[in-house]
């Protein structure tokens, strides 16, 4: 029994990673393959959804609401022709309205009201109180940075000098927060993909496929050595 996974994973990975070296036919093949596979998958499951949830209920007598969904869906396809494009906006407007309403309903509770709870600065231990104060300060400072950063001078500048100071503090906290995000992104990058393929490269047959790939790479580098360098202008 051939272990296709151990063969195909390394081959496909090397073909994808060939773009890190240079643009080649290997990269084009995998790029177009994934497009073809993704299109097939989307088409299959979308058609299954339409058949199972719209067309079959209509034929079984449950016409409403499937018929309206089917009609609105078909109207979106009028977008494909220039002469009928304007009619497709009806469906897109309804979909956008649904999306906006769903987001707005959901935003009120979890995104606004729940975020406005402030933990006490006096009720707990000194460390807890300090931490809660820092959290409050970082929130208010960030809001002040985005809304109340005024140029110095002028009436607004002098009136909002205090808020400018708060915005400065917010900037400090934002630097820490964005650094945290980038640090987390580095940790995610470390595990994204590479570790998975390393799992196949360190054992046969992946290690043999990697060796063949390295030999081809070394051969191509030696063949094109001069093209890797340039002479900078004075």
């Amino acid at each position, binding site marked *: 029994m051939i272990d296709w*996974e151990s063969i195909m994973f390394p081959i496909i990975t090397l073909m994808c990673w060939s773009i890190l070296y240079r643009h080649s036919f290997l990269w084009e093949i995998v790029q177009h393959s994934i497009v073809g*596979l993704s299109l097939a998958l*989307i088409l299959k499951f*979308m058609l299954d959804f339409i058949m199972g949830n719209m067309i079959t209920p209509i034929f079984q007598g449950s016409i409403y609401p499937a018929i309206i969904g089917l009609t609105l869906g078909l109207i979106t396809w009028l977008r*494909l022709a220039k002469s009928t494009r304007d009619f497709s906006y009806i469906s897109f407007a309804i979909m956008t309205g649904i999306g906006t309403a769903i987001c707005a309903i959901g935003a009120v509770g979890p995104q606004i009201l729940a975020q406005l709870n402030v933990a006490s600065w006096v009720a707990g231990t000194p460390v807890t109180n300090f931490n809660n104060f820092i959290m409050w300060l*970082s929130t208010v400072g960030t809001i002040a940075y985005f809304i109340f950063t005024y140029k110095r001078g002028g009436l607004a500048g002098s009136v909002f000098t205090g808020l400018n100071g708060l915005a400065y503090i917010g900037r400090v906290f934002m630097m*820490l927060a964005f650094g945290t995000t980038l640090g987390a992104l580095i*940790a995610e990058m470390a595990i994204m*993909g590479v570790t998975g393929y390393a799992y196949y490269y360190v054992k046969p047959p992946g290690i043999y496929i990697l060796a063949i790939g390295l030999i081809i790479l070394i051969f191509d580098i030696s063949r094109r050595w001069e093209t890797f360098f340039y002479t900078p202008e004075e």
Partner: protein
Amino acid sequence: MSILRRRELPMSLYIIVMVYLIFSNYTGIGTSLAGDIRSWGIAIATFAGLIGVINISYLHIMKLYQKREGWPYSIVMFICFIVYFFAAYYYKPGYDWIISNLSIPLGAAFLSGFNTLGVIFRGSKARSIWSGLILFSVTVTALLMVSLGPLISPGILDIARWIKDYPTTGVFRAVTIGIGIGILMLVVRAILGMEKSYLGEM
């Protein structure tokens, strides 16, 4: 037919559907129709997804027909598309083989994190105290997220944990509030007729 082309009709439908769903949610009136409207949204999203399939297929057919640069690769695309589509319906072992040995490795290989490398060694120069602060936060947070961190210094991890739990939470709380208020402003703009992005207008 000209009334169906006017933009007032989709704008009206946008506002009516949006206001009805919000009204139904907060009053409990007409929840059955609201549920049906949500299912229509799913139906429209399904057909809209298929527009992407049709568009890409059309692009590649024209590429083949006009023999533009890279046209042989379009044949690769169509072969993969046809084989996978028919295997999904008529040949389950082939479908399973393609999923395990082609689709999943292709999908995962494209997500390799090499693009972040360029950011790291080109974009991370500490030119000022602000970027130095970012770099400090980056370093301690990255060490917090891996098993190597505790071996280097538990003290650094305490600092990283504190930065994550308090200042970072506070900053992103402000961002979350801003996003929530932005969504509500979108509703207000829509009701006032100022929101027209779905019509292709700025």
